[in-house]
């Protein structure tokens, strides 16, 4: 696929497919292909640095864009995406943001996977008065301590996901906790929130050990041994990707998880659970995405459309990419013009139907209320998946408004 996304031009989705798709609610039957100048969206992501998450993300994005266009586009105008690869470097993301805004004349910016890339684009957006709809970066700073008028974020933040897990962790009898997290902002914040919220919920817990392996470079054997030496009753894990795989393997062989509960961020996402195959840990309390079991009408339609288009099952990244486009399309329908200020106003309090259900971009901090699924991991047919899960709606896992106002610079 070329980077300009130009290959979408020839793709016309059948009417039946469009109706079956999640965009069906938005599609007016009988409207053919969109007419007029396309609306350009600039999308920046770390495609070469984080392909495992971002290829499904891109597929989800493309699917949604095709559905929007097949359903008549935005008031008759097609949407067109220009994708750029920042290779994981925030300084390159800033240059590309400039390129998209100035040379490609995009109406708005989107994307971002790594937190620092997201913050760099957000700061560019603030300085240059351009709308930025962040899809993936999890850092709380994006909407709180460094939040700004032009930046909105879709995915449930580090705080929200930690709060969801604390709710479950507080129900456990465990008092002695250990933590393991990658040594960068995401890992540090997750551990900080988890400690703070859990101590508030259960004042008698103690944290007996913490490990901060470098991201992507965990020395799993030594880390597992160091955690075991502290003999905790439960473990809070924030590692993901290759670190998680190595941690789980060493932990299983060394018996770290026996008679211990593990509470783990993101581990239920297919991106991170599937590579573990039949060695996926059992009975961990996780946030994630049990894609094969969610049978709400919105999700079923999305899953079917995704499988038809890509001949593959959706990952969480697919949902994030898909919903970002759906949110942008909803905003474009609501906004009277492509003027940035008008679009920012339209984003404030924007409500749209996501794959997970209704979501709102809060006016107070520009965070969406998209939630996550919380459950425990089990092995089924030699694969890890989630059981006893529930959808934790993001709006229930945000601090009270006065706290948010204190966290976010008020202008």
């Amino acid at each position: 696929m070329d980077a300009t996304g130009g290959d979408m031009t020839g793709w016309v989705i059948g009417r039946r497919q469009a109706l079956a798709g999640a965009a069906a609610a938005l599609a007016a039957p009988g409207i053919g292909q969109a007419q007029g100048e396309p609306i350009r969206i600039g999308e920046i992501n770390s495609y070469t640095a984080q392909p495992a998450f971002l290829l499904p993300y891109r597929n989800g994005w493309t699917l949604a864009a095709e559905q929007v266009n097949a359903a008549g586009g935005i008031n008759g105008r097609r949407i067109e995406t220009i994708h750029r690869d920042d290779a994981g470097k925030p300084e390159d993301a800033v240059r590309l943001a400039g390129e998209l805004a100035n040379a490609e004349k995009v109406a708005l910016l989107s994307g971002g996977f790594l937190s620092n890339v997201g913050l760099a684009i957000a700061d560019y957006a603030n300085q240059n008065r351009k709308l930025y709809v962040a899809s993936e970066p999890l850092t709380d700073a994006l909407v709180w301590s460094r939040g700004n008028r032009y930046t909105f974020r879709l995915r449930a933040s580090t705080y929200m996901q930690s709060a969801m897990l604390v709710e479950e962790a507080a129900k456990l009898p465990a008092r002695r906790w250990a933590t393991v997290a990658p040594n960068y902002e995401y890992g540090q914040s997750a551990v900080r929130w988890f400690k703070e919220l859990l101590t508030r919920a259960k004042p008698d817990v103690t944290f007996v050990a913490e490990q901060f392996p470098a991201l992507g470079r965990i020395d799993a054997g030594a880390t597992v041994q160091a955690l075991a030496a502290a003999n905790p009753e439960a473990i809070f894990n924030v590692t993901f990707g290759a670190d998680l795989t190595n941690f789980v393997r060493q932990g299983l062989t060394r018996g770290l998880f026996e008679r211990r509960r593990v509470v783990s961020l993101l581990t239920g996402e297919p991106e991170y659970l599937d590579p573990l195959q039949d060695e996926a840990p059992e009975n961990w309390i996780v946030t994630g995405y049990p894609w094969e079991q969610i049978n709400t009408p919105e999700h079923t339609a999305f899953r079917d459309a995704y499988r038809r288009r890509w001949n593959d099952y959706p990952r969480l990244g697919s949902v994030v990419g898909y919903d970002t486009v759906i949110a942008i399309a909803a905003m474009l329908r609501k906004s009277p013009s492509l003027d940035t200020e008008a679009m920012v106003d339209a984003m404030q309090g924007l409500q749209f139907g996501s794959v997970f259900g209704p979501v709102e971009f809060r006016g107070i901090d520009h965070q969406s209320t998209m939630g996550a699924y919380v459950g425990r991991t089990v092995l089924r047919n030699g694969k890890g998946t989630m059981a006893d899960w529930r959808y934790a709606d993001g709006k229930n896992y945000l601090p009270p408004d006065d706290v948010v106002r204190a966290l976010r610079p008020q202008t």
Partner: protein
Amino acid sequence: MENLVLQALSGLASASSLFLVASGLTVIFGVTRIVNFAHGSFYMLGAYLAWTFVTTLPRGHLGFWGGVLAAALLTGMIGVLVEVLILRRIYRAPELFQLLATFGVVLVVQDLALLTWGAQDLLGPRAPGLRGGTEILGLRFPDYELFLIAVGPVVLGLLLLLFHRTRWGTLVRAATQDREMVGALGVNQRWLFTSVFFLGACLAGLGGALQLPRESVNLHMDLAIITEAFVVVVVGGLGSLAGAALAALLIGELHAFGILVLPKITLVLVFLVMALVLVVRPHGLLGRAPGPPVGGANTAEPVIRPAPPALRWLGFVALAAAVALPPFFGDYALSVLTEIAIFVLFAASLHLIMGPGGMASFGHAAYFGLGAYGAALAAKWLAAPMEVGLLLAPFAVGVFGLLFGWFCVRLSGVYAAMLTLAFAQIAWSIAFQWVEVTGGDNGILGVWPDAWASSKLVFYYLTLALCLAATLLLRRIVHAPFGYALRAQRDSALRSEAIGIDAFRTRWLAFALAAVMAGIAGGLFAYAKGSVFPTFMGIPRSVDALIMVLLGGVQTLSGPIIGALAYTGLQEQLVRLTDYWRLVLGLSIIALVLFFPQGLAGAARSAWEARRGDA
């Protein structure tokens, strides 16, 4: 107590894995003197190939161990391919130039691995017969780790036997000591180099393949291992197998116990160790100081002459274009030009120590990044206006340049380069870890130019003026008495000392000066981007600078300028054109290396001189 014993065993297992990779690297370096960046790629390929073999072959001992061996051998063959197709053609190129080619190979392999095996991490099966654990002092320890602990010493023993008991091994050791002499005695060097490359790549592949039951196979394996392997090789002493083993042991154990005391130390530990070892022992633990360079004047680099009139004219035309055309460009073109101007200065500053100075640096981004942080911290904590920040940054960097430089310039060759890398990584980890002051990896935001310079055009002219002045000053310095002294000590330290040049002081000041210039570039970069992140002083940024200088040509003054233009321009265009820009960029670099082994500017000069007949 039991826990400490198990921690030590875990450290041994890691040390063993590390040694396998490092041994291959050190053998290759010892004989061919190639700084092989692609060694990490061989390691990754070994792991991926092993995954493919082990999952397709029938399960059981034969399938698993056969698959691992087959992967190692196939990786060795890939190493031979790289050597025969690329490296063999450029052995006569200047030192470190082969590094450029291996960097191209790294880029190509990254995209090919993504295309072949997909983006998702792959988990291989566990080793048959070694799935479980053994009780040691009442605690469970994985059998496979015990096996790994044994593999390291066995491989070391086999290698020592190979090197000391076979004719081939004797030749390899002889070549490690004196390559020219071995050649003069009639040994076929080509064959020797190729076979050494096979062995080295094989060992890397074996190291990767043996990780299969331990770790997932993923696309980040190459870069994760390569710096660590280099550290082990350098700490042990280049070319020394026993040294590599000792260093791997040291680092493996320090890691295992370090995280008990300071859980966050993993980021920087290996580099702290390397810095300490190199300061105390400039040639590593078991390395030997190379003898004095043979023949003194014979090794002198070509004399740098004033630019010929045609080149001056070309320079004037380019300058006139850089001044006159931008008002007609859009904002994006201006920001790219700003970036190019900054990188020209960055590359020129590195060139001062690499070309005329004769020292390599793998950590030049430290000074670029420190300049950026200097400017950003001044803006954030002192609320300083842009002018003050831009002025303050180079001074702050100069202090660090003097400090780090004092240690680095006492060393030579790859050792010096690796010490610069160690300091760069220490600086990087401070920026990364000291969240209260530097904002950690989330960086410092809102470092935008003052109102008068906020227009892209004004900022471009500001950058152009500063970078041009600094670059021309660097040129001037090379032709000044200081520059002559610098070049003299590069060509013969002994002779220059004899005529009263203080070689150490000359190198030291040049190093600090280069740091200051990189600091100017970094300060401008901070304001051009509006934010500062630890990536500004990360290894990739240092490598970028190195690539620009090498691509342009080390022994010409225009080299870094051409190199910065070519590399930045190429990358900027490719990222916009294709998703597989790494593949195309890697292939372009390899092609440039093969066709212009003197660098772009060097090739232009040769062509010019050949036409005028005064070569």
